[in-house]
Structures are given as C-alpha cells and as structure tokens.
C-alpha cells in the first residue's frame, strides 16, 4: 500500500537559477550510482547498520519513505541542509562503514544539498520517472584491440524530455577481458579479439551494446566451406564478418562417436564403426543416414528420457518409487511417440488426478508450492529465472516483484492430497481460498502473463477458477507467439550438441544475456515452429549441420573463437555416458542394484540408484532443482584418482566374461586384438604407430594381462573421457 507522496509540502521559493530537484529524477540515481543501494550496503535484505534501501533502488518509493519516516526523518535536515546525515555520511565527514562515496565539492553533493534545501520533494511519477534509455553507439565494431570509445546514455522522460545520464548510469561488460569498461570516463576499450556485450542500466531501464573487437591481422581470406543447411549459412555470415575461418568437417570415425554419444548416450560398436568407415556413400548423405539410424534406436529414447527426467526432476525423493517409474514411463512414451513438444508440455501443465493413473500429474508433486512450480516452469520451459523477483524486482531484467506473484497465481489453485493407495497422491483444482497474496501487503494478486503473446485471449480481470488458470497458462506458454517458449527450447537443445547455448546459460535468458547469433536462434525457432514443435526434426537439423560436424582442430583464424561455433569443442562425457561407455568398451555388463539386469546408467529411473557411487562422482544431477547447472561436467582430481585407482575400470577390464577375455580366448591375432580395443574404446582405428606399440606391448608378457593393460590405458586416456 502506497500511503503518500510528498511534493513541495513546504512552500519554498526557488531562485530562478536553482532548478527544481526531485527524489525520483535526481536523488535516487545518485544513491544508486554511489553504491548506497547496492547489495553489500543498504540494499541488503536487512539493510546496513539500521538503514535499509531497496536493492539497486528498484523501489524508489520505499526508499523515499525510508528517508522520510525511518527514525523521524533523521537523515536530512531542512533547516540546515549541510548538517544532513545523508551528506555527512557519504562524504565521510563522520565515520561511515561504507567509506567515502563522494566528495563535498561534487555535483552529487550539491544535488542532494539542493534537494534538501527545497524540502525533499518526491517528484511526479508521470514526469520524473525514466520512460526509456538510449545509448550511443548502439553497436560497436572495433577494427583492432587497443581502441577506445566513449559511451553515451540518454534518459527519456514520459513528457518526451531527455537528458544525458552517462555519469549516473551503470555500465558493465559481460566479458571484460575482451571489452573493458572504464566507469570514470564512461569509455570502453578493446582488450583482445572477441565479442562482448555491454549492459547499461539506469533507474530500472536497460540497454545492451554488442561489441566486436576484430582481428587486425592482415591476410584474412574467407575460404568458403560447403554448407549443409541454413545453420551453416547463418554461422558463416557471422564468421566472415568477424574474420574467423571455420574448421572443416571432422573425420568419419570421430563424427560417428560424437553423434552416437550425443543422440543415444552410447558409443558406436566396433562393427558399426567399421561399417561406417567402409561405406563409400558421399559424405553428407552417409552421415545423414547414420543420424537417422541412431534416432531410430531405443537408446535414443533412453537418452532423452533421462535428459527430460533431469529437467522435470523425476526422483523418488519427491515422487516415491512407484511414482518415479510412472512419471519416467510417461516421459518415455511421449518422446518415443515423438509427441509434439507443445502438446506434452500442455499435458503436464493441465495435469490432474491420481499420481498413479495420470503420471504426468507428478509434475506438481516435485514442486508442491505455487511459487516453486512457477519458478520451475519458467526456468524449464522459458529459460527464465524468476527467483530473484520473489524478494525484489529482478536486478538484470525487467521482471518485477508483482509479476513474480502474478505468474505464481496461475498455480495457486493446484492442490495435492493423499490418494487411496500407499504413496498415491491426487492433484486437484482447489475451489476456494487459493488466492495468491503479495507478501508485502497481503494484496490479492490476479494471474497475469509475463509477456504478451499475440493471439492468446486476454485473461478476465478476476475470478478465474483454478482449472481455468492453468489452462490459460498452458495455452499462453505453448503459444507459437510466446516469444520465449520455442526459442528457449531450441537454445537448450542446441547446447546439448555444442556444449554451449546460443544464449548461455540456457536457463538464464534475459535482456542482459543476449544471443551470440540472434539470426541463427531466430531461424532455428522459426523452423521448429514450422515443423510443429518436432524435437526430433530440430535435433536432426542441428546434427546435420557442418557446424556440428566440424573438427575440434583449429586454424590461425579461429583458434581464439569460443563463441561462434567455428570449430567443435571437446566435451567430457556425462556421468551416465561414461559409465555406459566403460561397460561397452570392456564388455562388462552393467550391474546396478534394484533394477533389472543389464539396465544401463542412462536407463536408470532416478538418482537414487547407485547413489554416492561412480555416477555421482562424475556429476550426475541430483534432480533437486530445475537448473541445467545441476549436471557437472568438469574433470576433478577425485575423478581422475577413481579412474586410475578405483575399481570401476580395473574390474571392468578384468571381467572374465568381458571383451578382453573373449578376445584372448578367440585366438585372433594380436593385430586384431589391438584394433578391436581401439575401436571399442576410442571408436577409431589405431594409427600405425599406435598399432605397433600395442603389438610390442602384447608380445612383452602374458597376453591376457597385457591386453587388459592396454584397454585400461585407453580408458584412462583423454580421448576416451571426452567427446571430440
């Protein structure tokens, strides 16, 4: 509840020379820029030393009222403005825990002084609140590192007046080692070749400036490579502009390994590699056929069931054992049938009933609270993190605290009650008392869409029942016009094949985190929509591109590129991929407790199985949040020690029914054994040198033990641990 705004209460005659100063227009920007409202200072949730302001000044009225009413307005002195605490503290005339914020001879001091002398007026929201900001330049392309450019920020007010606010604006670079911002002079300097985005903020308004620092090296000649589809066209367009020469296609063996791991989570079998290498079909067609074959395998469904199980937090911790299996089967069937993405997302959102009979209703059992459900839903299906806005307006986005609760109101009518069977729960639509209330003043928040989507009918102003709330939300979320639904999904899927989204992180899309190639993301989104939310089509398009099939080897023009997909990047195998790859390479059958024999790591129902073992060590997600970041892909020392000293690999290579044992017993020549072990682990043939040293090693001692050693060494190589 806003109780009052004060405007020129105390009659003060201003001399003509003294421009009127208001809190909204003049003082709040100073408090923000001087850092008073920052997170570690008075903007902290509990304030600092007894004085609290809103974080980064997102709520100027709250801050104004804090100045007026906290401890009877002790921070200003209208009778003697120079004695005001809010001048003495930041100038350190008296001890200030936050140190010196500005000096007495600055315009900041004078502005606040004049504001107090004028009676501390708030200002007129219709006149003094910034409507938008404009930045100059809007795009920066520096021909070489070392250049410097001045930035300018202009604020526009509702009445159309403008003023320059460069000094008070906050300017940050998302990649300071490419483009470094000097705040004092409001300039940006190119540090090294690459790209960066500048984020400029002023009074809750945002703008971004893309910066490209070009390679000044002479002699760049664009050498066009064959383009497989529109993805390559759009990537090449950007690369050519940035003077980056892409890497050519990776060789067949590495391609098959990469695409098998990405689509099915499994290594190609030695015979598959041999057949693929022997196939003389023209390269592009051959690869395309291999892709179709992989997507037809059951392992493809396993792999993506696992991925969506991660995102939807399918885990017995929330769902119980039976619930987990049920939910997993529902996901699997949706993917196996290639149900359009929008259709099955609508089914999830609208789900009701018994968790056993309508397993999709488990969606509401992992996050049982409306706010948590809203946070999960926006993060998974829109790539947007709303959580910051629960306590204050989002600091890097336009989302407000009100929107957080308006969005949560779509789910406030979802009820969960015990069912009739053990472990069963019923998801139902509550009939009354489900209003979502704002924590500040208990006001009832009606559901409201976060962003407009053309074609989605407007919501009635109030009295929407619980079922209709979710229906309305589901229709809006999955609408073709929803600017975030298809786009965030396309971006997320892209990241699974490139190790990085076009917007990254994929579940933190915001104005201050723009795409590295907007045209590419738009084209993929459009294509996805044109093919009716077909996830398989989308994946097939991505993996058929030359960009996906590029080599990890770089040339002199793209060695420094980490953003434009000009070459492939080695990616460590995920925990389940790695576990399954060890089984496949060694022929040791997987042996997990509580699941049927031969269940692979990828097929496990939830993180409960094999807890605290190899999989968790290698970063399997715990499925406790909807964050993509739950899956860890770094390589750590405990992991390396496990591979070298732990039982997982040494037991598998020595398995008496395993690959080595069978090969040795088969009586095949040593050369065949060496070749088979390379194919089984690294999915490629050994080079001449590798083959020779392998043969020499096998000949140097007991054959079975030596063959085990060779496989052990291969499994401990980087080439095995990574997809490349």
């Amino acid at each position: 509840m806003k109780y009052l705004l004060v405007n020129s209460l105390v009659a003060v005659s201003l001399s003509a020379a003294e421009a009127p100063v208001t809190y909204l227009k003049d003082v709040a920007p100073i408090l923000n820029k001087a850092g008073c409202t920052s997170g570690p200072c008075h903007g902290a949730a509990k304030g600092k030393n007894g004085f609290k302001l809103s974080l980064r000044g997102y709520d100027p009225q709250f801050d104004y009222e804090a100045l007026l009413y906290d401890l009877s307005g002790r921070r200003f002195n209208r009778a003697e403005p120079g004695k005001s605490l809010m001048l003495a503290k930041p100038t350190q005339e008296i001890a200030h825990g936050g140190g010196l914020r500005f000096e007495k001879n600055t315009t900041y001091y004078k502005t606040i002084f004049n504001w107090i002398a004028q009676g501390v007026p708030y200002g007129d929201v219709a006149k003094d609140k910034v409507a938008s900001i404009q930045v100059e330049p809007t795009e920066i392309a520096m021909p070489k590192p070392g250049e410097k450019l001045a930035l300018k920020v202009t604020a526009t007010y509702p009445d159309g007046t403008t003023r320059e606010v460069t000094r008070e604006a906050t300017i940050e670079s998302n990649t300071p080692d490419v483009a470094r911002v000097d705040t004092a002079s409001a300039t940006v300097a190119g540090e090294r070749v690459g790209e960066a985005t500048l984020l400029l903020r002023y009074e809750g308004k945002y703008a971004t400036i893309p910066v490209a620092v070009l390679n000044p090296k002479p002699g760049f000649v664009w050498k066009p490579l064959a383009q497989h589809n529109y993805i390559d066209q759009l990537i090449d367009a950007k690369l050519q502009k940035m003077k980056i020469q892409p890497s050519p296609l990776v060789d067949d063996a590495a391609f098959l390994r990469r695409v098998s791991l990405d689509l099915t989570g499994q290594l190609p079998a030695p015979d598959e590699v041999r057949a693929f290498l022997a196939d003389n079909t023209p390269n592009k067609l051959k690869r395309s056929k291999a892709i179709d074959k992989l997507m037809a395998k059951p392992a493809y469904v396993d792999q993506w069931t696992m991925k969506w199980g991660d995102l939807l937090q399918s885990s017995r911790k929330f769902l119980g054992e039976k619930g987990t299996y049920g939910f997993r089967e529902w996901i699997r069937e949706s993917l196996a049938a290639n149900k359009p993405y929008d259709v099955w997302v609508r089914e999830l959102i609208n789900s009701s009933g018994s968790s056993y009979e309508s397993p999709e209703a488990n969606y509401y059992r992992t996050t049982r609270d409306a706010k948590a459900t809203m946070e999960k839903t926006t993060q998974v299906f829109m790539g947007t993190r709303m959580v910051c806005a629960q306590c204050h307006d989002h600091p890097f986005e336009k989302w407000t605290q009100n929107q957080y609760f308006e969005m949560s109101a779509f789910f406030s009518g979802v009820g969960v009650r015990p069912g009739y069977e053990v472990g069963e729960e019923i998801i139902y639509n509550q009939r009354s008392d489900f209003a979502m209330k704002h924590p500040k003043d208990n006001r009832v928040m009606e559901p409201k869409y976060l962003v407009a989507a053309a074609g989605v009918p407007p919501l009635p102003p109030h009295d929407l029942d619980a079922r209709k709330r979710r229906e309305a939300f589901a229709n809006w979320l999955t609408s073709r016009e929803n600017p975030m639904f298809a786009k965030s999904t396309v971006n997320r899927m892209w990241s699974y094949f490139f190790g990085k989204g076009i917007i990254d992180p994929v579940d933190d899309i915001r104005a201050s985190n723009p795409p590295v190639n907007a045209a590419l993301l738009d084209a993929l989104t459009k294509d996805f929509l044109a093919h009716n939310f077909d996830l398989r089509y989308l994946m097939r398009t991505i993996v058929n591109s030359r960009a996906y099939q590029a080599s990890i080897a770089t040339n002199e023009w793209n060695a420094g590129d980490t953003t434009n997909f000009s070459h492939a990047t080695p990616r460590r195998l995920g925990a389940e991929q790695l576990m399954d790859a060890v089984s496949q390479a060694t022929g040791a059958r997987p042996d997990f407790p509580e699941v049927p024999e031969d269940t692979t790591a990828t097929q496990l129902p939830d993180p409960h199985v094999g807890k605290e073992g190899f999989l968790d060590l290698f970063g399997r997600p715990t499925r406790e949040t909807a964050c993509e970041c739950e899956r860890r892909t770094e390589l750590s020392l405990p992991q390396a020690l496990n591979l070298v000293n732990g039982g997982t690999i040494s037991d598998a290579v020595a398995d008496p029914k395993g690959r080595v044992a069978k090969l040795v017993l088969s009586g095949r020549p040593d050369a065949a054994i060496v070749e088979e072990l390379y194919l089984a682990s690294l999915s490629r043939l050994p080079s001449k040198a590798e083959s020779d040293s392998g043969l020499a090693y096998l000949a140097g001692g007991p054959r079975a033990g030596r063959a085990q050693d060779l496989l052990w060494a291969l499994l401990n190589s980087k080439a095995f641990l990574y997809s490349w």
Partner: protein
Amino acid sequence: MRLPLLWALPYFAPCLAAAEPSFYRDVRPILQQQCASCHRPGGASSGLDVTTYSALAAGGKRGAAFVAGQADESLTVKYLLAVAQPRMPLGGAALPNDQVELIRAWINAGAKDDSPAVETSTAKPALYSQAPVITAVRYSPDGQLLAVAGNGEILLHRADGSGLVSRLPGQAERLLSLAFSRDGKILVAGGGTPARFGEVQVWDVAAAKPLRAMKLTTDTVFGASLAPDGSRIAVGCADNTVHVFDAKSGEEAYKIGNHENWVLSTVFGVNSQRLVSVGRDRAAKLVDAATGRFLENVNLLRGELTAVARHPAKDIVVLGGEERVPYVYLMDRPKNMKIADDTTLVRKLGRQNGPIMTLDWSPDAQLIAVAGAAPEVNLYDAGTGELRWALKGHAAGIYSVTFSPDSKRLAAAGFDGQVRLYDTSTGQLVKAFIPVPMAAMGGAQ
C-alpha cells in the same frame, strides 16, 4: 605513502607545543570520525569503544588502548602506523599525519582526561528559511504550554497555538522526545545529533534555562520518559541499551542491555517501579525500574516496534511499529506463561495505512491516538477498540502526537513542519501553525 616517523616528528612538534593537546577538544573528534563506526558502544570491534575517555582507557580485547606518556608503546598508535597489523582504520585510508601526531602528542603528554564533568546544552536559536520536521510535541501538565521540538531547540508555545512563549536552544540537532515533570517545572528532552552524540537535556521551564545535559553514546537517544514520581529518566539508545538516570543529580543509575537492536521508546509503570522499553528487535521488555533487572517480555515478537504509551492509571501499554497494528497489552506477563500464549493481549486496534511512529493514551483514559507514515491520526475508543475519528489535514507522515491534560485537544506534527490541533470530541481540526519563526516568510503565525 606515509612519511617516516622520524622525519615527521620534529616537523610537527613546534606547532603542537603551542597548546597542551586536549582529549575532549582534539583527540575525541578524530576518534569519533575515523574509528567510531566500528569501535562504538554496542558491538564494539575487538571490545574497544573509543567514544569516551573512560571507555578508551578501559581498552579492548587486545589490551590497553594507550600507555600514558609512551605513545609509541601504545596499541592505538601501533595500529594506526601499521606497526601492529592489521593497519587501522581497517580497509580505509591511513590517518593523515597531523591526526596521528595529535594522538601521539596527547598520549606523550600523559593521556589526560579533560572531558567536562557536567555539561549544559546551550546554543543560539536557529534561523529558519523553511520549516523543519517536527519530531516531538508535548503539553505541560497545567495545560498552558505546548512544547515543540524544532531544529536544535525546543519551542514553548501557548497551548492554543496563539503564540511563541520561549525558545530553548541546545547542542543536540534533533530532539525526538519530550517529557514534563508532574509539577510542570521541569522539561526533559531526549535526542542528539545523528551518528555523533546522544543527549538528554533537563530544562527549568519557568526560567527557560538549562539545568543540565547528559551526553551519551554516539547517536541520538530515543523515547525519553520521566517516571511519574519524577525520580528517574529513561532513554533508549542506538547501542541497544536503555540508560536510566537519576533525574535530580543527572547521574546514571544503570544501563540495561537486554535488547538486540536499537531501543526506540520507553515508558514507566504507574507507580514508577517498573519500566517498559521497545525497539527494533521487535521486543517490549519489562524491567524493574529500581535496579534494571529484567522481569518479562510483554509481547510476542512481530514487527519492529517504534512507540509505546501507557494507560494513565493502569499498567496497560499500547505498542506499535512496522507491522502497522497497535497492540494493547497488560504490562505484566506471568512467568509461567507458555511462549506462544498471548492471553495478556487485551486487544488489537485497526491496521494503519503506514508504519506506526507515535502513540498516546488520553489522560482521561478514553482514547488512544495512533499515527505514523500515513498522513492521518486515528483516534480509537480505548475501551472498545473502535475507531472514533480519523483526523485529517496532514500532508505527510506524523512523528508525534499528544493529548492535552484535559484530553480535549490532540496535537500532532511531523514531516510537513506544521503543528495541528484537533478537537477530540468532534475530530475537527482547530488550528494549524508553523511553530518556528521563519526568516524568509515573516516569522511565526
């Protein structure tokens, strides 16, 4: 870079020789400015409080702050010069040489205390170009005067607002609370200058002269109250303490440290035997007024508390603050009550449109006045809790309300700098005036 000491010393020595270094005049302001944001009463870093001579002399966890006559053996100097680590002020710029030299000179000269024993507070009356915020209003017990806290002074007006009688200027910039003795001869004011010092002023009303002033802590004091029998003065402090003074001598009787945040208001019980204090820690604490011994918590913790007022004849208090709801509680809460038991709550009054900043209970016990950040005073029937009147006319929030001794008038004032007088039987605004003489606008009305 800091200058080498050997070089600096002879350079500064001649000018220091001119006057004996003074703790009160020279050293104290340096410590106040440079060190007191951490080394202050209530949460003093390393247990060291530098705000008074006695506190400094008591030293901290690391030992004595100074060794009289031996500046370079003194911890204070060692830390300032980085001889001991970490260099002070922690994380800030080193002190200028002249300041360090002043401290050294004072210690070398024997580290004597020259703080004045009894202070009075006097200053020149302020000139106003615009009305200051009004932080406190209070009627004299005979109903003749209305005391108003202006900027650095108390203004005594005729109770009907018909004219200014006298001005009582002091050193404190802000006076946040006023209390008359029962006979009306003495006026107590509590306040200070924010982030510098707290002050309790005791005035002879008839002579308009200060009797004494007690300085304490490094920030203003809040919610000063005078026991009904005139024996004691209590004030809440920003160092989480309540200080209780002997009203006659001005000596500190004791200090209470049972709050966990700033203490913003106090009130004595009917028979002056007990004292209730409220603060930002959300607690209302009841103590024995003779000794300061903690008795009980009055309330269940809800929002931060700003104001407390007592029934004129019974030990019942009304308290309010951040949560906007005034709670009427019995002052006593039997020891054997369970924690969540709230049966001593007499009633809740209506929710206000903004945080509560001031409360008063009418002398005839009939009405409770509630006001705060919203520009209105709500008058409740104390017996039923019903809203009697919503008093309008203020343009902004209200810092202080008070009933006249006959309960017929209510004075309210706050941010907009005007005092407004209301008829409590009709809810009508009787008079509004700016209580300070305005230089530019032709003086008081």
